[in-house]
């Protein structure tokens, strides 16, 4: 006889923990709670990578992001390139052509001037590559200990072509799921420099602006249902959010998902699963089956889409669920990230 307990115990934290920022379930719940309680409106409730505003008939994408990464310099990039590319990508994922961004800097007392120069040099180069304007910014300095070297906040705007609607809620049974390249690179590049578990690797962050790639995809067709850049929480979390919002099932073929050998090795060493590692220069796209071949061809002609592949399809069964056909021939559920990604030895 089972003991009777109140299974509807509300899980309330008294303080914010790191888990709330990890991109997993706790993050999602926190955002939904805050939005639901204080900020509810039809624009924000879409909870897409960017908000879509209608300004006198012109559809504008508007997004914000904060970058608090540690270490601030990592193989393949730094907090500067990350902020520009991240913002450009959030806009691109709703089909917008990124136009401009603002750069808010919060600097910790004691940050070497040389580091700031290096980061702003990165910002300049990334903005030039993406073809976006850094239209404004703000700088604040806080006491030693009140920030970790440098925090960057951005706000970005872009223009959405008439009639185009790309949203996480639009995946449909029969859609092909396309991935622009290998997963886990950024996550491992960053972890490889983390104190306590550092190691040498050739893996560099994949941070890149995806607006040119998206433009070449839109040239094939505007009938793209979903686009998402799988950052915090990894590919698995993004696929789950899409499956949930669209009310569809997603089947993924593990053997088709590109993972660099060194990423696999690093994951084996630390107990990570590449499906949950952050990516900063990749996108997953849901397109009608009929467009898949042409779309892949177009993606592969673009610098950041060279390794684009078909990784799965959308089905009507098991709505909200992502199922993985494993590389050894088994099958399992691929859930969203729960908890934090912590290295383990046991």
């Amino acid at each position, binding site marked *: 006889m089972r003991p009777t307990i109140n299974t509807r115990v509300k899980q309330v934290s008294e*303080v914010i*923990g790191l888990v709330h920022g990890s991109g997993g379930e706790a993050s999602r719940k926190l955002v939904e709670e805050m939005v639901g309680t204080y900020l509810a409106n039809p624009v924000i409730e879409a909870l897409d990578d960017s908000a879509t505003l209608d300004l006198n008939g012109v559809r504008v994408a508007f997004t914000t992001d904060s970058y608090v990464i540690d270490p601030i310099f990592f193989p393949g990039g730094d907090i500067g390139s990350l902020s520009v590319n991240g913002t450009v990508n959030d806009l691109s994922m709703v089909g917008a052509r990124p136009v401009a961004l603002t750069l808010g800097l919060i600097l910790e007392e004691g940050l070497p001037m040389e580091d700031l120069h290096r980061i702003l040099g990165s910002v300049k180069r990334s903005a030039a590559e993406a073809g976006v304007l850094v239209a404004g910014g703000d700088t604040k300095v806080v006491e030693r200990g009140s920030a970790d070297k440098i925090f960057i906040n951005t706000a970005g705007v872009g223009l959405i072509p008439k009639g185009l609607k790309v949203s996480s809620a639009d995946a449909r049974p029969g859609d092909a799921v396309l991935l622009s390249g290998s997963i886990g690179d950024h996550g491992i590049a960053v972890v490889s420099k983390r104190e306590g*578990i550092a190691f040498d690797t050739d893996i560099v962050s994949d941070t890149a602006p995806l607006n040119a790639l998206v433009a070449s995809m839109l040239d094939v067709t505007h009938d793209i249902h979903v686009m998402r850049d799988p950052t915090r929480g990894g590919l698995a979390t993004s696929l789950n959010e899409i499956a949930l919002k669209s009310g569809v099932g997603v089947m993924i073929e593990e053997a088709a998902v590109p993972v660099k050998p060194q990423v696999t090795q690093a994951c084996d060493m630390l107990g990570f699963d590449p499906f949950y590692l952050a990516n900063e220069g990749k996108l997953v796209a849901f397109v009608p089956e009929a467009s898949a071949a042409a779309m892949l061809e177009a993606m592969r002609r673009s610098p950041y889409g060279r390794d684009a592949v078909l990784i799965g399809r959308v089905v009507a069964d098991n709505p909200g669920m992502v199922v993985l056909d*494993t590389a*050894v*021939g088994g099958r399992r559920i691929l859930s969203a990230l*729960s*908890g*934090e990604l*912590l290295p383990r030895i046991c």
Partner: protein
Amino acid sequence: MKFAAEFRSRDLVAGIARNIHRASTGKWTLMEFCGTHTVTIFRHGLKTLLPDNLKLVSGPGCPVCVTSRADIDRIIALCDVPSAVIATYGDMIKVPGSRMNLSERRARGADVRVVYSSYDALALARRHPDRKVFFIGIGFETTAPSTAAAVIKAAETGLDNFHVLSLHKLTPPVIGALLEDGTEVDGFICPGHVCSIIGARPLEPVARQWKKPCVVAGFEPGDVLQAILMLVRQLEAGESRVEIEYARGVSYDGNANALAAIERVFDTTGSEWRGLGNVDHTGLVLRSEFAGFDASSFIEQEIEPVPDPPGCRCGDVLRGRISPLDCPLFRKACTPERPVGPCMVSSEGSCATYYQYAGEASE
């Protein structure tokens, strides 16, 4: 030969699965003792390759999961020691004590650092002579030697600001305890890396006295399936022997160097296994010769044993009596973000593994 990828080949796995289907006629229940085996099984979806007459249950082989709340409270208590730095493997950060976990204590100001190796904790102590470094020694026999090695090094170099809180546990006696407790399992998939240290010999009592076949398995999908095949063959033939599937990782006698390090530094004692209670001869405690390196001398307050919350069925899950899916708290009051019991805490605890990999469509 790369020693890993070859054992993950799709064709190899398919072949072993075919062999298992051909070899098994009876209904058998096998227990994978080790949490890392549970993860391998789930991550590669291996259950979907097995015949329906084979059932796999997960055992208590997750050192994090079986660490008592009182022991976590001891770690939290160490955070209050002036100039303390807690050095720990990542596994421990989210394990709940009776009031909070290490991550939450860090949010409230404790200096907690994740390390990959016990020698990293030694290096931390050397770099910061003004701080007291408390290394949390968690893990089974696989990890105990590295804690021992660190203590030996600290003693050799007179590093008196380095201390160890030994929460290490030993495994073979627990398999016997499970069977004594009435767990109904026909054979054991035994932990490959524990046996890299202790060898296969300590499993003989399980095979001889309890008549349960034991196969020491590696961690690639091919290894786990081959071990299952070897168990099925024994069971079908009515045998109960200790066999080693993981020949590349395990010898019958084990690693004498590592065993010597454990023997030099540690003494055995009883220890509290969450969900199982106290099991004799399963804890490792620093010998008196190394008392100066024992972190427990810094813990002034009496830490009361803490019962698990009402409704928590980790004990039954750890003993293989029920599946996580049978626990009324699973996925409702108990999630990886807010774990109630130990099985949900470690990312390789049964419940956390089921939650992450099995979803609602399993079993």
